[in-house]
């Protein structure tokens, strides 16, 4: 970590085509770890988020994708100010809200809302649906035309629930319906930005598409900007205009939908894409690249030096260990497509000549087979 060159983030580098609504610069969150005996002291930190740059435009939907534990939720929680950032800045419509207190945040609060992952713990079991959706309006003293109850009924209808469910309790609803209630609550304040933290990953696959469609329609009809957090690229494919790929607390690649899905450069994006089943629907080629990542994400307590992906990267070289690749528009990238990699892949999702296999057991197996036929084994 100490020997790497950190280049300053380029101004407006993660820029969007529209006017920026939310700008995040160098956002960092370290959770301290206490230990030691007999006196407890700080012995380290979980570097959950470590210098994330992100911009969300007005009415734009941005996907934030990465493996489990790479800091997506933490980023979302920092942006909604549920967590206090360790470093970096968050500005909303040009106003710095990085360390704003609850009172200072009040005017902005209703603009930034959140949809949670777990539909079971995100609704208070002791409140009726009406109370749940009404609370944000009460807190912010919003008195909509025709009264709050009428507004709640409208919202219920908007998210595809029966307005008569007003007096029901959450335990009387299915997971999908609960998530709709969560969406209605987020919409109650007419927000400009909604952070959706894996809003469908707790739902049954058959219901996921419905909820994603609902969100998409809400996004398009009401012009709300979305930061949609997901752990695979398939879910955000149709939803997001731009996608940011995160790995171990950092954004490694960001670009518009076409750039990420059809012209990815970062090896990690390639690996994620190869895990997406229906990625090749646009081009007719049946055969896709196959990359099988093995092992877990390294510990965020002591991340690898240089490029954090190097422990699992098949293109890693010495430079990757010593120098941290900056997030740049590298040659071959279109406008707004940024990649943090020293040795990027070709901008294609065409089939590879050879499979990249990163599972050692699998590699050994296939190597034997390859040796038999005299072919060259897969590259490390």
């Amino acid at each position, binding site marked *: 970590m100490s020997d790497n060159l950190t280049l300053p983030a380029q101004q407006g580098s993660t820029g969007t085509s529209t006017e920026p609504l939310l700008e995040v610069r160098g956002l960092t969150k370290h959770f301290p770890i206490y230990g030691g005996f007999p006196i407890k002291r700080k012995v380290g930190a979980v570097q959950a988020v470590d210098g994330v740059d992100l911009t969300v435009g007005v009415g734009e939907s941005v996907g934030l994708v990465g493996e489990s534990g790479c800091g997506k939720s933490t980023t979302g929680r920092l942006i*909604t100010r549920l967590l206090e950032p360790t470093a970096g800045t968050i500005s909303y419509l040009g106003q710095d809200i990085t360390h704003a207190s609850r009172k200072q945040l009040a005017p902005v609060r209703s603009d930034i*809302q959140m949809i949670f992952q777990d539909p079971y713990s995100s609704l208070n079991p002791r409140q009726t649906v009406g109370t749940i959706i009404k*609370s944000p309006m009460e807190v912010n003293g919003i008195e909509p035309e025709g009264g709050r109850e009428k507004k709640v009924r409208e919202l219920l209808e908007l998210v*595809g629930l029966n307005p008569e469910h007003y007096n029901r309790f959450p335990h009387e609803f299915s997971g999908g*319906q609960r998530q709709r209630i969560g969406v209605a609550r987020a919409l109650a304040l007419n927000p400009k930005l909604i952070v959706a933290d894996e809003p469908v990953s707790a739902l049954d696959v058959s219901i996921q598409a419905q909820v994603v469609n609902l969100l998409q329609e809400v996004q398009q009809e009401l012009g709300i900007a979305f930061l949609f957090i997901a752990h695979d690229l398939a879910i955000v494919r*149709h939803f997001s205009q731009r996608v940011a790929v995160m790995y171990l607390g950092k954004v490694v690649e960001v670009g518009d939908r076409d750039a990420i899905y059809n012209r990815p450069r970062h090896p990690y994006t390639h690996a994620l894409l190869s895990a997406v089943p229906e990625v090749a629907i646009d081009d007719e080629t049946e055969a896709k690249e196959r990359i099988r990542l093995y092992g877990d994400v390294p510990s965020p307590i002591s991340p690898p030096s240089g490029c954090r992906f190097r422990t699992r990267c098949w293109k890693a070289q010495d430079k990757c260990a010593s120098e941290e690749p900056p997030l740049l528009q590298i040659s071959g990238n279109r406008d707004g497509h940024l990649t943090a990699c020293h040795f990027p892949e070709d901008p294609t999702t065409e089939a590879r000549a050879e499979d990249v296999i990163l599972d050692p057991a699998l590699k050994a197996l296939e190597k034997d087979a390859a040796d038999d036929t005299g072919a060259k084994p897969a590259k490390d």
Partner: protein
Amino acid sequence: MTSPTKAEGSGPAVALDPELAATSEVDKPKTLEGRSPGQLMWQRFRRDRTGMICAGVVIFFFVISLCAPLLTAISGTNPYTLYGQDPTYADSPVLDDFGLPLGYLGGVSGDHWFGVEPQYGRDLFAMLMYGMRTSLYMALGVTVLLMATGVIIGLIGGYFGGRTDYWIGRVTDFFLSFPQQLFFIAFMPVVTAFFVDPREETPTYFRAVAILIVLWLLGWMGMARLVRSTVLSLREREFVEAAKVSGASPWRIVRKEILPNVVSPILVQFTYQLPSTILTIAFLSFAGVGFVEPTPDWGKLFAAGAKYAEQDPAFMFFPGVALVIFILCFNLLGDSVRDAFDPKSGR
């Protein structure tokens, strides 16, 4: 407003939302009052035969002790008159020459339904009714007080966490480290002496206040710990975060989001705490630091009963049976309440 779910779908089309169809079918009847978790709990409780009977018995005890003056008016006795020594009652003796009750079962008769006390000849029925009144309502007061304290302290510690929680935890530990029974006995005279000149007679109400203070000071910790741990787990729930995102104040979050969710553990704890407080108060009187003569008190009846046990074992019978039934029913009631709140816990 248009309903976007019915609008065209851009992804895999789900024009006909099955969830939507299903829900609109269920909701034919217009009265759509959902049943709250509280109402569901009440329904489950009503189906529990033991719980209902025990609740009835417990309520019965509270009612009769509240009606003690009424009942003693019917029996025509009072807990203070010494029927064995008072010359007014010389024509209907209740005690023999040795000061023991005449008749069977400690002198049960039409006048004295539960018999009389040896030596003095006081009416046991009246003593028990008034004694129960003192004990039950003292216990109720103490329990409410220490529950309230425990809930407040637990809420603060659990919700704010960090340093606040640490110091509250240490204070709780400190109070927990007292050997309670010993301290009750040791502290009662101290507290009394603190407020009242030892040379003067301590008024009865003041003894009550002293008992209240001592039991309260040494009794709130269990509740505080229970509430704290419940709140700690609730605090991490996403609905609390949702409230924070909407800008709710900590006070509102505690009141609207967290408190309603700790009601059930509080209620369950209450049904366990009350009988144990009654026993503690009885113990104090038994040990001679609680109420003194002539205030009628349940615990004191046992102290007296122990004294008379050899000559007149029947004296212990009625207060003892009443106490056993009451405590048993109250504890069974506690179990039923817990089961009703948490159907998974089973038996």
